[in-house]
């Protein structure tokens, strides 16, 4: 147990170190970029004389050496202070947290959809490698890989929202359902279906092929032959013995692709006017709200690092052979 606690401690330490490095890199990038923040701020307020510039530099600490500025910034981030949005005039972190639930709901629903159906398809086709369904998985995975998620979203809107009118075009709620709790929940899920499926289908395409490849390999291994030889029921062999190992690559891919999932969610949020972090990122860029843009990148890096950490723990639950420092 102590060994486990220590390995968890090591992973946590690595994760914090990694986040710190992200903060440093982002800070340096902003410093390296052309342009003078003091000039920009002065321009915003329509004043340009040197004294005012000097005052801005002193107020914002821009006259301090770079390392001091970096130290201050890291100190602030450590205290969960990502600065203040220049557009909203409110703390960046609060604005992100207000939209976190929408993004997590979208990305989570898409991921669940992709992993569950992907694994089911993978298991189904691994037992029939030469079937039309199996070739379908191959074709679908390649098409899904090459399809822009925002285009798929637009096409879904055209078909399901505009032509058939069965699902809402965008947004997260309909004012008509403001009244009841049940109506609001149903309304929320109606709005969630199209964005989540658009985002999920791309990953479904990838995971179904991955799950099939992994299951094919596992089903050939010795311990599966042993399980069959001792007379285990085929269903037990596939779903109890094989699936447990076969699902590992899918869990790995899902965990490692959280960053890509967030990237995809950004585009989907933009198309569906889904009020999440991604849409906030794009509007902030157009408003040239730097603290917001930088804050969102650091926050999403923290989400990715957390997701990787969780994947690592899920691994341990599925496969006790995986240990910290082992070959990956």
């Amino acid at each position, binding site marked *: 147990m102590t060994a486990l606690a220590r390995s968890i401690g090591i992973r946590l330490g690595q994760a914090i170190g990694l986040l710190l490095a992200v903060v440093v890199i982002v800070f340096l*990038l902003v410093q390296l970029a052309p342009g003078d923040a003091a000039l920009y701020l002065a321009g915003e307020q329509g004043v340009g004389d040197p004294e005012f510039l000097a005052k801005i530099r002193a107020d914002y600490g821009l006259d301090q050496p770079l390392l001091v500025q970096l130290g201050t910034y890291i100190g602030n981030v450590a205290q969960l202070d990502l600065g203040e949005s220049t557009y909203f005039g409110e703390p960046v972190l609060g604005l992100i947290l207000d939209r976190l639930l929408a993004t997590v709901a979208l990305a989570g629903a898409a991921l669940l959809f992709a992993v569950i159906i992907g694994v089911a398809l993978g298991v189904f086709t691994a037992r029939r490698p030469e079937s039309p369904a199996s070739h379908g998985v191959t074709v679908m995975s390649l098409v899904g890989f090459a399809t822009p998620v925002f285009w798929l979203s*637009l096409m879904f809107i055209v078909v399901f929202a505009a032509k058939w009118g069965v699902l809402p075009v965008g947004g997260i709620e309909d004012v008509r359902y403001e009244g009841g709790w049940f109506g609001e929940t149903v309304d929320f899920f109606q709005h969630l279906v199209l964005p989540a499926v658009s985002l999920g289908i791309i990953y479904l395409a990838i995971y179904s092929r991955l799950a099939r490849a992994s299951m094919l390999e596992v089903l050939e291994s010795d311990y599966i032959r042993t399980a069959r030889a001792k007379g285990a029921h085929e269903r037990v062999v596939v779903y109890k013995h094989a699936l447990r190992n076969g699902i590992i690559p899918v869990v790995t891919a899902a965990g490692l692709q959280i960053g*890509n999932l967030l*990237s*995809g969610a950004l585009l989907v949020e933009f198309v569906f006017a889904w009020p999440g972090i991604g849409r906030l990122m794009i509007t902030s860029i157009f408003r040239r709200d730097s603290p917001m843009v930088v804050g969102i990148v650091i926050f999403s890096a923290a989400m*990715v690092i957390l997701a990787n950490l969780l994947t690592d723990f899920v691994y341990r639950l599925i496969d006790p052979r995986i240990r910290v420092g082992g070959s990956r």
Partner: protein
Amino acid sequence: MTDLGIGIESVETGGRGAFRMFLRNKAAVAGLVVFTFVVLVTIFGPGIYGVEAHKMAAGPFLGPGDDAGPLLGTDYLGRDILAGVITGGRTTLFVAAVAGAMAMGLGLVVGSLAGYFGGWVDALLMRFTEIFQAMPSLLFSLVLIYLLGPGTWKETLAIGITLWALPARLTRAEFLRLREMEFVKASRAIGCSDLRIMTRTILPNAMPPLLVAATLLVVIAVLFHAGLAFLGMVDINTISWGSIMGKNKGYALTAWWTVAFPGLAIVTTGLSIALIGDGLQDAFNPKLRGR
């Protein structure tokens, strides 16, 4: 490759064998044909078709097949969608190819150094790679464009910098595997320099998976550039598949053709490259066929 007498023969048949395998793969050959067609269209198409993509060609919102308008219809300003699809590939394919090469080059250097030297070099470089993997790539390239400003070269840089971690990890894994092989030890024993072993002995043997990865990277770069253009983050004066969709997004509900065809062009291009990659994968590693 220098002639060493024995052994070289089998290497050559290996390469030729892989090529023959590739040609026997119908899907891969179809991918190659379609991709060649796409490239030829983007190069010669605009000259042959002769309609300028950013100029008004007919009335606005003419549907595809409409007698008064061009084949694929027009957008909200009456611009010819077909002309846009033909012209739009230029920027996207250029940016994707250069950004893919940039990411591949960076990844090769970092990955080969980490894998070959191991130890603290490996630890340091891999920690560095992890930093770039922690930031969601599209968000990271958005920030880079935000800081650098729009422009084709800056966009290429912003995409290339965000995509190199993948080839770096793959190269490292290949170098780690190959550096313990007998033939690498033999090169070291006869006194070859590290650089020579890395570039002449290990790299050619690491090429197959890296070539497959390169095709995937180009597809990802195409999608990236399309996404950035769709969001309106790239130079607004260049026409690309993504930007046509971005500008017509608000009219998609009624004028579906303004977004459908540019998107189909991306899917076709991406799929053709992915098929080539898949064919290479099968040709290099026949054991994995059909997986």
